[in-house]
């Protein structure tokens, strides 16, 4: 038996003509049929990617030990005693035991891969799209930092990254996935963008 993990948005992706590929037991959207156009969208405008498949590990408590063991992954530090560690799909299977061992008894390490859906908004039009989605000022967040902020009236963990293009990753409760995706996609489309697959995002150096 080969169980497949699917984003709660998988049927919406199918309606958009998603081309699927499999990675670490996940079904990912490689593209929506025109990879070149999607790359151009990210490079020149804005694209929206479902990055729910990311490995996600929540660490709370005394973080020093866990952070030193995290290695080359994205750490979204939300508070002094709370960090969300983000990895490639399937990366949580390695991360959780490593972080637990390093954190010791003074921190709680939890695999929250399935707790959140994740969106990445990528492209130079990112500020315009965000202006339609939140009153929170993304300029208040430096590249590499993370915080809690409302996106489309939903509580989200957001992390800002500057790659070849500006990228904002937002993680919201999985049960709100469809509402959040539809609302964010609507804002992205009004900004001239649209949905893009993982390949377009990875082409910009995202991991």
């Amino acid at each position, binding site marked *: 038996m080969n169980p*497949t993990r*699917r984003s709660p948005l998988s049927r919406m992706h199918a309606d958009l003509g998603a081309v699927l590929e499999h990675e670490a037991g996940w079904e990912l959207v490689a593209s929506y049929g025109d990879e070149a156009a999607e790359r151009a969208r990210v490079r020149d405008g804005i694209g929206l990617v479902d990055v729910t498949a990311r490995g996600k590990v929540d660490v709370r408590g005394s973080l020093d030990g866990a952070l030193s063991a995290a290695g080359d992954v994205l750490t979204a530090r939300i508070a002094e005693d709370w960090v969300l560690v983000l990895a490639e799909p399937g990366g949580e299977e390695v991360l959780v035991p490593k972080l637990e061992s390093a954190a010791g008894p003074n921190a709680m390490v939890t695999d929250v*891969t399935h707790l959140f859906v994740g969106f990445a908004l990528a492209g130079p039009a990112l500020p315009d799209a965000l202006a339609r989605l939140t009153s929170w000022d993304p300029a208040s967040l430096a590249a590499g930092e993370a915080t809690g902020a409302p996106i489309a009236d939903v509580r989200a963990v957001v992390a800002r990254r500057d790659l070849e293009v500006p990228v904002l990753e937002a993680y919201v409760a999985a049960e709100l996935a469809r509402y959040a995706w539809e609302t964010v996609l609507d804002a992205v489309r009004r900004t001239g963008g649209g949905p893009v697959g993982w390949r377009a995002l990875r082409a910009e150096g995202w991991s």
Partner: protein
Amino acid sequence: MLERLYPNRFADLALGRIRYGVMLNDEGVILDDGTVARIDEDEFFVTVTTGNTAALERWITWWNADWALDVRVLNLTGAFGAVNLAGPASRGVMRSLTDADVSGEAVPYLSATPMDVAGVPALVLRIGFVGELGYEIHFPSMYGEHVWDAVMAAGERHGIRPFGLEAQRILRLEKQHILVGQDTDAESDPFEVGLGWTVKADKDDFLGKRGLEGPGAEAAGERLVGFTCEGSWVPPEGSSVVHDGIWVGRVTSARASAAVGSIVGLAWVPSGWANDGTPFEIQFGSHRSKATVAMRPFYDPEGQRLRS
């Protein structure tokens, strides 16, 4: 923390075991109910009612901050999908889904057992809101379609069918299992709804203890009781319980039960009526019906099917 949050005892809950509990506010009024499973020496898996999750998260987190205990609380509601595989054939279906021993001896009633189900790491809870042998399978939510499809395929030769909330409402009524918020209100305490056994008054303290011990607390004026009803008319929720034409109580839930062969329900009545066989009258508009108090579950009162 659990000892303070609930009126019953959890410190002695054995690893891999589950206990039912009701959570009370400071006045001893029922806030919520659910199960607590001990999944490690210092780790507990707590379930609450569906609509109360966010409020209970705030409640627990608030008290945790106030008590300054070395406890961390994480709401994992969205992280888990859950399927309640229920019915006498459920063990046979489970055997097709896992290599683990799912016999009644290995996975008894009120146990919490980690095992792979359909190739997915899962926590299997032997609890039974619907009153039958059942396995509540909790698994990482994004395997949801895979697990559902696998369960339905494995159950095909057993005649499996999906069931919805309406069937669940009938089945839980046959067992007289309460729904907090529907069968309880802003004044209901555990003694009034027949859950006094969950209150361990010898504990040093718990939320609601002083409320339950306060003046007049033991002299409950009302009791929530089960009832059967003559005829085929199903009294709507909120129907009056009347005595000599005077309102003395209300129906909180009622359904037609094929298993019992009668209308069954729950109603608040004067506490003196809380005895098997007490007749009373229900009224809704021009409808009137004769009802009889039943203090024990209508279906499988000894719980043999649950424990099988």
